[in-house]
């Protein structure tokens, strides 16, 4: 009947009875410990928790009731029987009062004794399961209590503002972020706060309260709390239902969206710059095509061809622009899949020079290379390094003078590879240097007129170099020439 062997203690000074009951219980499958006197009984019974203890009432050293008392003091769940030949109504009551479960009168038959023990085991199981239940309940309560305080602590400390109003507009809950965002100095639970909230929120809250039909829908409004876009909040107002489904109130969360708004402005500025840069070549091409197709405008054959050629050039620049934009957007999203490998920069330099050969020859530019012996390989994506070198070199050619020169230097320090490209070009004025790497910045003067470019080349170079934690520097003398120096880490880590 017992799952685990129940452990029974017998405290009995009479040897025959002690051994007899022990054998009897062991035959029934119980684990039995025995004590031959009261003090040993106390020692055993208090140092171990027995399921059952059968204690003789009369022992020479210590009284059975005393043993019972001591055991119960330590292990109140041990089911104790008092066994005695001097059964009396009074001792029975006394024993029960101290905590005995039962009273076994001597002499007893084995059946009677086992029956009593079985009853005791049942009692023990009842006590233990009640104990278990109680413990579980206590644990749950504790968890609940700590869960509540944890939630409270979380809501109090989050960056979002939280306000809960009942359906009269009385404050039921708030956190400090809400007060900070709304610049409310003092607020009390139970206080009607409708007047303290921004008009836009009040409007939404009133809409929620006036809805006949309860809609579990979140209404959001954006509020400029401080002027000049210094603090913009997004308030999300959500109705809170009672368990019966009727409206209990509204929970308002306040998020700071100032930074998002700033990014939105930057984004729209960028989009307008892009739009301008794209419309300009389109306008030129459209202008030429309109003339060519218009019968009322007389265009000589040679001129016509010239216009078409120029249209192709403009469309090519538009394609370059689109490609540059795609590169930038990939870099911004960091989706650009980098294939990091060991790169021999010298080889990439030679490849780029080959692709630019035609332009170099056209302007009759002298190229001088100075590459350090045993230049270390660097860890990078080949496309990135190609892009850096080709953007810098094509600028050095484009903005160079006829019969000019370009010096290319590749060297290294312990941790960095250094690429230096100098030209004998038009140079950059000191005041223009800071804007040089910004998107769409192109120096406009008589010397740059007619040189096509997207205005993104250097911006892309800078982004790539910085994505490798490298650095780019420019040194220039107006009308003499420009030097770009790039330091790239040899090892990515």
């Amino acid at each position, binding site marked *: 009947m017992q799952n685990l062997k129940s452990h029974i203690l017998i405290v009995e000074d009479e040897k025959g009875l002690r051994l007899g009951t022990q054998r009897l219980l062991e035959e029934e499958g119980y684990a039995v410990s025995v004590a031959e006197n009261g003090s040993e009984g106390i020692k055993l019974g208090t140092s171990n928790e027995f399921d059952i203890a059968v204690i003789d009432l009369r022992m020479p050293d210590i009284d059975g009731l005393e043993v019972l008392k001591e055991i119960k003091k330590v292990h109140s769940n041990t089911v104790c029987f008092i066994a005695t030949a001097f059964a009396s109504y009074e001792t029975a009551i006394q024993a029960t009062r101290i905590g005995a479960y039962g009273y076994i009168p001597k002499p007893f038959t084995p059946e009677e004794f086992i029956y009593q023990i079985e009853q005791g085991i049942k009692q023990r199981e009842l006590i233990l399961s009640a104990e278990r239940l109680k413990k579980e309940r206590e644990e749950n309560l504790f968890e609940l209590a700590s869960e509540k305080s944890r939630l409270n602590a979380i809501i109090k400390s989050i960056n979002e503002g939280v306000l809960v109003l009942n359906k009269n507009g009385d404050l039921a809950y708030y956190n400090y972020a809400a007060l900070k965002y709304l610049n409310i100095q003092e607020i009390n639970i139970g206080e009607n706060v409708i007047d303290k909230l921004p008009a836009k929120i009040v409007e939404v809250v009133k809409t929620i309260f006036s809805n006949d039909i309860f809609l579990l829908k979140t209404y959001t409004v954006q509020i400029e709390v401080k002027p000049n876009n210094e603090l913009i909040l997004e308030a999300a107002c959500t109705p809170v239902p009672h368990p019966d489904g009727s409206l209990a109130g509204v929970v308002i969360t306040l998020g700071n969206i100032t930074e998002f708004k700033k990014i939105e402005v930057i984004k*729209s500025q960028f989009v307008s710059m892009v*739009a301008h840069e794209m*419309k*300009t070549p*389109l306008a*030129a091409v*459209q202008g030429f095509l309109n003339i060519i197709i218009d019968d009322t405008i007389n265009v000589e054959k040679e001129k016509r061809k010239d216009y078409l050629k*120029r249209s192709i050039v403009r469309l090519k620049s538009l394609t370059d622009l689109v490609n540059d934009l795609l590169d930038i957007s990939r870099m911004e999203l960091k989706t650009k899949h980098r294939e990091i490998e060991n790169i021999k920069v010298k080889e990439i330099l030679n490849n780029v020079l080959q692709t630019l050969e035609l332009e170099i020859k056209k302007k009759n530019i002298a190229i001088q290379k100075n590459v350090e012996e045993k230049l270390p390989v660097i860890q990078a994506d080949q496309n990135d390094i190609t892009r850096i070198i080709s953007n810098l070199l094509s600028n050095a050619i484009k903005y160079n003078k006829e019969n000019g020169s370009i010096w290319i230097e590749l060297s290294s320090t312990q941790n960095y590879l250094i690429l230096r490209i100098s030209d004998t070009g038009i140079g950059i004025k000191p005041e223009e240097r800071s804007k040089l790497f910004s998107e769409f910045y192109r120096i406009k003067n008589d010397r740059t007129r007619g040189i096509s470019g997207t205005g993104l080349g250097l911006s892309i170079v800078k982004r790539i170099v910085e994505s490798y934690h490298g650095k780019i520097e420019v040194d220039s003398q107006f009308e003499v020439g420009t030097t770009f120096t790039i330091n790239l880490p040899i090892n990515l880590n």
Partner: protein
Amino acid sequence: MALIAIIDDDIDILDASSLVLKSKGHDIITATNTTDGYKIVKERKPNLIILDVMMEEPDDGFYLAQKFRRDGIKIPILMYTSVSKAIGMDFDKSEIVPVDDFVEKPISPEELVEKVENLLHLKEVK
């Protein structure tokens, strides 16, 4: 027929616009920057100025238009640019910039001719 000054740093657009207006019998003078633009207007006193917005900073088309007006040059100005109205360049002509009309590039030959003739006619009525 009229003398028209076109000031634009985009040579392609300058050439195309010139040709359209020449085909209508107008005489065209051009400049590719604001300095030259101011000079040819001062010297030749055209009947109309067509002015691009985005040129060398800070001497852009707005600046040049203001300079003309400040210096008492009342020649009608047609300002044109590829800066889109949709991105906040929605100014109401003379309120911000002292120009007589404003068009967005690209512009069709018909539209250009129409705008130009409107402005020239306006001046004659005056």
